[in-house]
């Protein structure tokens, strides 16, 4: 078996969709946030795979920026979780239901 681009992309698509489903079905804010990290990492995998098979360096730079942004997002997101927890003693998203208006 020769490793091809689509093997990596399949894996990335799987990670991404499982992340999407996780965001939609889970109730714990931190777990939802972890599912979002899964999605971002799926994207990174596809960037690196494209970059490798195209012999193009731009994809790797994009991953570099995604990581930076993800770190910033994690800092702010977890600060929001802590602020919410201080007032509510829970991170359950019952009232903050994602699919409900």
């Amino acid at each position, binding site marked *: *078996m*020769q*490793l*091809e681009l*689509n*093997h990596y*992309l*399949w*894996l990335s*698509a*799987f990670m*991404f969709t*499982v*992340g*999407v*489903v*996780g965001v*939609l*079905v*889970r*109730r*714990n804010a*931190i*777990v939802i946030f*972890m*599912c979002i*990290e*899964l999605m971002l*990492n799926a994207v990174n*995998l596809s960037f*690196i795979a*494209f*970059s*490798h*098979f*195209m*012999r*193009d*360096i731009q994809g*790797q*730079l994009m991953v*570099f*920026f995604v*990581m*930076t*942004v993800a*770190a*910033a*997002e*994690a*800092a*702010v997101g*977890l*600060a*929001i*979780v*802590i*602020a919410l927890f201080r007032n509510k003693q829970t*991170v359950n998203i019952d009232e903050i239901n994602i*699919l409900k208006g």
Partner: protein
Amino acid sequence: MDVSGILFVFLGAQIIVATVGTVWSRNPVTSALFLVLNFFALGGLYLLLEAQFIAVVQVIVYAGAIMVLFLFTIMLLNLDNERALAEKFDLRKGFAVLLGGVLLVELLYIIGLKTPIPIKQTALTTVQLGEAKYIGRELLTNFLFPFEIVSILLLLAVVGAIVLAKKNFTTSPKS
């Protein structure tokens, strides 16, 4: 099957298990640990794709820094004993799973078409493309502007995280 194929199957299986584990686990700590496993496996795949620099950054930044932040928050809030969250299956979730399934099938199919991708002419070998030296050079020439401006974003994150989570800001609750 050569060595890289075996490695791919091994790491890929690890990623699939860890991905499902992250979403499936009842306990947030277990989820977080599965996610760490996932990030390590991804680092391995990046090495397989000859992106050495990104692989190292992946392990240091993601598995090292970001996940520690997650675990730290979980421990700080003592979420461990909240495993009795009502995660029951209802129509809304069924719809979400269906949606995800459709998206997955669609993506798998389109990737399976094996659309030919453009291959760039470059003097560098694929190994060199992943080296810190060449990434750094690109970062400080063509990508200089985003590289510099992203520092404002990091400043914002520092200011924002402090203002939201610091304890001794004096405010009174809204009546």
